[in-house]
């Protein structure tokens, strides 16, 4: 049987996504074999900093009875000596039963899958794909509402934000209307917008958060990176106009959920944390059952 990799959400069809989410829900309700991956080793190859993704993969393998190995920091590994990723992957394939990789270069996980003899899971490749994040985003939406005939808003840096791109691609498989709000120059890339429209997705672009807030069922907020702006003043100007506050949410639909891949900086007022709309910490927690489902999918 061919080795199964998880590289891009675009490699999935809707039934595969639904099946993985059903499995994650089963795991979430504690119905799973705690020794499902007993004796299996997951190599955690992170060439970029990560808190949530890395820890939740390590937690996921531990909860299934397996163990993880890692290289520690990038400086400590042979890549720092100039070894190619292809060679690193060939070597690590001999040490583990699956590899989860985060790398600053786009397409790195696809390359890794070509050289690996064990399954590879992409945990983020530069500005590219981050399929496990997308699956947990979808899972969190599905906890609150069926992903059907809903309005989902993407807010923030939609040009470079990989989580927004992956989520938009996945949502195009469902009956979803997409709303976008982003600063000038950080809009959804044209190629992606065209791709989504070709799949029949309706996209509505907005100029202010106030005009959008009452229309949507899901508000997906992403971090605005200060370095994308010419100066601090223009950053603060945009950041304050996009900030999600309890006052803003008084105009929202009652069942609206607010998601954020975290870490957040100024995008969401901490007072929103107590609101019934806030789901971003739940979303983060969902990373474990979703990644457990993914590991079982490729390692069993």
């Amino acid at each position, binding site marked *: 049987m061919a080795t199964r990799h998880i590289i891009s959400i675009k490699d999935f069809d809707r039934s595969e996504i639904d099946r993985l989410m059903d499995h994650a829900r089963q795991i979430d309700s504690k119905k799973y074999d705690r020794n499902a991956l007993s004796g299996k080793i997951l190599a955690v190859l992170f060439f970029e900093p990560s808190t949530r993704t890395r820890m939740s993969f390590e937690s996921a393998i531990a909860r299934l009875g397996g163990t993880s190995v890692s290289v520690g920091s990038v400086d400590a590994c042979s890549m720092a000596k100039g070894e190619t990723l*292809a060679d690193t992957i060939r070597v690590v394939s001999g040490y583990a039963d699956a590899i989860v990789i985060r790398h600053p270069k*786009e397409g790195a996980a696809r*390359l890794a899958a070509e050289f690996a003899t064990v399954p590879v899971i992409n945990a983020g490749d530069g500005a590219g794909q981050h399929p496990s994040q997308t699956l947990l985003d979808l899972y969190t939406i599905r906890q609150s509402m069926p992903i059907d005939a809903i309005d989902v808003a993407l807010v923030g840096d939609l040009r470079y934000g990989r989580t927004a791109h992956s989520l938009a691609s996945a949502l195009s498989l469902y009956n979803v209307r997409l709303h976008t709000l982003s600063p000038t120059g950080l809009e959804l890339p044209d*190629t992606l917008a065209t791709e989504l429209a070709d799949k029949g997705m309706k996209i509505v672009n907005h100029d202010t958060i106030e005009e959008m807030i009452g229309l949507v069922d899901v508000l997906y907020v992403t971090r605005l990176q200060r370095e994308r702006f010419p100066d601090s003043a223009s950053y603060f100007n945009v950041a304050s106009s996009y900030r999600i506050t309890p006052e803003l949410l008084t105009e929202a639909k009652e069942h609206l959920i607010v998601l954020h891949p975290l870490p957040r900086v100024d995008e969401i007022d901490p007072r929103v944390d107590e609101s019934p709309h806030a789901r971003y910490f739940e979303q983060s927690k969902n990373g474990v059952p979703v990644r457990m489902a993914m590991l079982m999918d490729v390692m069993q």
Partner: protein
Amino acid sequence: MTHTEAGENEGLLVRRIRNGTVIDHIEGGEALNVVKILGITGTTQEALSIATNVPSRNMGRKDIVKLTNRELSKEEVDRIALISPHASINIIRNFKVCEKKGVEIPTVIEGLVRCPNPGCISNTNEPIRSKFRVLPTGLHCHYCDWVIAKDLTSYIL
């Protein structure tokens, strides 16, 4: 029709060749890009003739490339389709057209163009060749999904 007749119709702009390949019906002005795609440079051995903006009844104007002592492979021929989908290829042996074929747009191209995305893993020292899927929207990088929708020739390796 032999390539001789084709030459005469155009006033014999370029000399007949004994053996090799004549690429006819290239979109006007694309001949130099065809040569680039074929990897022909000043340092390669082939004798090369190029006619550009030749009047053509069907195309208005067209370019012609003649390559001496080299028969193009299917893979090379199909690469030409990316910039000139109506090109026709005549394989010449002893002054006669022995094979005549059209070009087909390939589904995947490898090692021909570099990915324009500076952050793409294919632009590093990894032991891989660039790889693109050819879709109606353009060339999609196999690794990072970046799309080359226009100016393909400026990315030829």
